[in-house]
């Protein structure tokens, strides 16, 4: 609970600091707030506190809180001069991101479906505004509107699903629902089944899994890059944590029922994400589609529910988050210099910026899943988990998709190293350097010695 309070209070303080034009103080206050909440995450470890049956701060919740807070912290470090170009009042950007984070903490720690809904809504409403925060930019407005309409639509599905399940079981509580399923296995109310499907659809919308992914590329492309970073890393991680918590804690007894639609979603997601990413000429849009394909790999954790599922999602999400932050950070730097985010603007980048190019290369290798990077360990764990039930065809399909992934992730490496181009020199402020170096260290460390994180949950 301390975590949510800290984040919310920080958000309010930042808002007031903005009111009094204390621009220089915004970032330090935010960072202190986030670091404090990280400390609370660490101290609450293994205590497993429950708050009024609504939220449970178990290690699952804490681990995902930790990683989302850390991701947000990195993104805040990247705000240097970023928003200042758009607006005088940057305090509201900070506040909205922090409020979204508060919603995310609820999403990863809920024990009651009403809290799930509240968490998702707190987060989503902030994101609708953030996506459209460039008021005079057409693409940004379009992104916001699309995101809002689609998001509202999917929330409808989610709510309808919750209602049906409540009708069947008489409770919002995950544990009660689980017990209901175990106790009445032979006589489950027929309302329950459409409830599960509707919730699956609603959550698939939120995490951007196909065939409910249509909003993702446009919104990711149209929103300011830093907001896209936030959406595709922190928000996505939270979405999967919520997804996993619901299906593993509450719906696990009906695994046989919801597995076939889930596998269909996984396959379509992998295929559409990868194949469409292949044809993108825009780096940002490619990352959007690749985030869809990563959603497919992340859903693997639900295909075989085991004690390791949560941990596997954590490892994969960590790998994906830090690699993506690198990719977006470099993209921001490149875009500031060249003015566009096509692959072409990366041409010849390695010549003048060898270290930045190396960092981005490692990020791409991690996203593609090359050994000795965190991304490989993430994919490996997912494959291992699914192979545990000998779903060999599914893994083989995923491997074919991973191969497609190599093509488009290597596109940017090819552009940086092998193509001649405008020899721009990127300016990396100190904070960017810190983020890039830390992210690369985490990516390589998790790739070489993942033992530290494997038994966290």
């Amino acid at each position, binding site marked *: 609970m301390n975590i949510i309070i800290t984040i919310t209070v920080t958000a309010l303080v930042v808002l007031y600091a903005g009111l009094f034009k204390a621009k220089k103080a915004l970032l330090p206050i935010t960072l202190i707030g986030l670091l404090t909440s990280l400390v609370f995450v660490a101290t609450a470890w293994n205590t497993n506190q429950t708050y009024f049956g609504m939220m449970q701060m178990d290690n699952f919740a804490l681990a995902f809180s930790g990683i989302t807070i850390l991701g947000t912290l990195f993104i805040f470090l990247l705000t240097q001069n970023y928003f200042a170009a758009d607006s005088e009042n940057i305090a509201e950007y900070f506040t909205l991101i922090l409020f979204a984070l508060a919603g995310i903490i609820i999403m990863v720690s809920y024990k009651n479906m009403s809290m799930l809904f509240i968490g998702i809504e707190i987060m989503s409403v902030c994101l609708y505004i953030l996506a459209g925060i460039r008021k005079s930019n057409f693409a940004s407005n379009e992104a916001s509107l699309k995101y809002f309409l689609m998001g509202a639509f999917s929330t409808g599905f989610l709510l309808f699903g919750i209602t049906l399940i409540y009708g069947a079981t008489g409770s919002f509580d995950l544990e009660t629902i689980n017990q209901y399923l175990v106790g009445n296995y032979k006589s489950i109310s027929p309302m329950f089944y459409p409830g599960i499907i509707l919730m699956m659809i609603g959550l698939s919308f939120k995490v951007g899994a196909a065939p409910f992914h249509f909003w993702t590329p446009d919104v990711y492309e149209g929103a300011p890059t830093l907001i896209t970073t936030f959406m595709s890393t922190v928000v996505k991680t939270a979405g999967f944590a919520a997804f996993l918590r619901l299906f593993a804690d509450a719906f696990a007894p009906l695994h046989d029922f919801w597995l076939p639609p889930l596998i269909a979603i996984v396959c379509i997601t992998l295929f559409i994400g990868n194949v469409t990413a292949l044809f993108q000429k825009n780096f940002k849009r490619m990352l959007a589609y690749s985030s869809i394909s990563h959603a497919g790999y992340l859903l693997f954790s639900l295909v075989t529910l085991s004690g390791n599922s949560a941990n596997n999602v954590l490892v994969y999400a960590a790998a994906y988050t830090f690699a993506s932050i690198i990719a977006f950070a470099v993209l921001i730097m490149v875009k500031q210099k060249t003015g566009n985010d096509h692959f072409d603007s990366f041409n010849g980048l390695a010549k003048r910026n060898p270290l930045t190019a190396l960092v981005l290369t490692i990020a791409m290798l991690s996203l593609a899943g090359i050994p000795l990077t965190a991304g490989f360990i993430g994919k490996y764990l997912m494959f291992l988990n699914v192979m545990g039930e000998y779903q060999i065809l599914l893994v083989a399909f995923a491997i074919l998709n991973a191969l497609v992934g190599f093509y488009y992730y290597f596109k940017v490496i090819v552009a940086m190293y092998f193509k001649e181009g405008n020899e721009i020199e990127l300016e990396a402020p100190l904070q960017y350097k810190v983020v890039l170096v830390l992210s690369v260290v985490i990516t390589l460390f998790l790739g070489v*010695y993942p033992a530290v994180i*494997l038994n966290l949950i």
Partner: protein
Amino acid sequence: MEQLLLLLIFLPLLGALVTAFSGNAAKHVALVSAIVSLALALVMVCNFTPDASTQFMVNYPWIHDLGINFHAGVDGISMITILLTNVLVPLIILASYQHNYKSSNAFFALILFMQTGLLIVFTSLDAFLFYIGWEAALIPIYFICAVWGGKDRIKVNMKFFVYTIAGSLFMLLGLIYLYLQNPAHNFDIQAFYNLNLDSVQQGWIFWAFFIAFAIKMPVFPFHTWQPNTYTEAPAAGTMLLAGIMLKMGIYGVIRWLLPIVPTGVQDWGHVAIILSVIGIVYASLIAFTQKDAKRLVAYSSIAHVGLISAGIFALNTQGMQGAMIQMLSHGINVVGLFFVLDIISSRLKTNRISELGGIAKQAPILAITALIIVLGTVALPGTNGFIGEFLLLIGVYQYNIWVAVFAGLTIIFGAVYMFRMYQNIMLGKTNDLTITFTDVKGSEKAVLYTICALIIVLGVYPKPVLQLSEASVQHLIEQVTQKLTSVN
């Protein structure tokens, strides 16, 4: 003594890091690192008892929860491949001395980084570690070929990369399957040897592994990436690919395929042999028609590797021992050939056979050393190629006489196209282009002399090398046949 292997594996990595930050002195630093590695390998050979046991064993827990250990050791088979790697890397670095590559520190660092990957592959006794090494060797060579290669390098190397990684991902699938079958849930090679898999399972694992190895070697019909990649790669890249990297595939078959799925080999090994023999004939015929010398050598390499692969799947001591020594010889010879072609192309900017001629008059030292290398390649008695191909042919002959007849064609075909190439490049009339040719000097001489010395020494007195691997090879054959008889 235990730490010797760790030092051997990680010294090149350290060398790579130092090289990366040593600016213009990079090539010297890299050479020193490679020579120290070679010295370490020689110390290891001196301390190696040539029996079937695994020596210099290291075993540290790495990722405990997933049953992954840093488990490595050296037996006779590994010893040969370690020697091959650590002899060739300094030669390849020295062979790149005359080139002025841009960002040469990165170039040499990548070579050394690759060396670590190769050494992990050749010593690991843990399947996961093996896989890591397998990929760790691929990434640097991809960058070497794609950054410093010819003008078509981007497309060609993408094909190469995706081809190889496709193979290795399905191998990973096979490894995970074995891991799950293993009641101890670890990747230990001994546990994999002891698994009881039925013939259907073994068949699937056989193909998952064989395709990965066949792509690497390459065996027909998985070879289509090879000629273009070799042609477009910078000289050092081609030498690394042909000299060392393809041996990863051969080593993989010996270490990870035959003993783990003997029934699979019994059921499907003949297909592998047939593919190898088709590859031999097919590649030889194509080599005849090549106009570019580098492509010709690339195809000849497919033919030679086909023979090695056939010799291994024949599953007898002669074939296997032949493969061992031929791995070493082929590595040395092919590096020599590509180096000679590199010397020519860096002076005359072409490797087209028809544009060359009469170089011998201008460069007698190059002509003589090149002749020795060509003789080694065509397996003239007294050179290193002879003893390997002879043993391989005996091995294949014991398996099936017709296979031996077709496989024997390599030697005849090889002699024809190799000599024809030599004749057209070195002999004949000096033309306007080749009149400017200057003879080899300095580091070039050092590389060529070393290679020629190795060719002759190994050809005249191969016994120490054969002895290194003999006990291990026999042990391996026994292990496989024992397992087969216990099944039947």
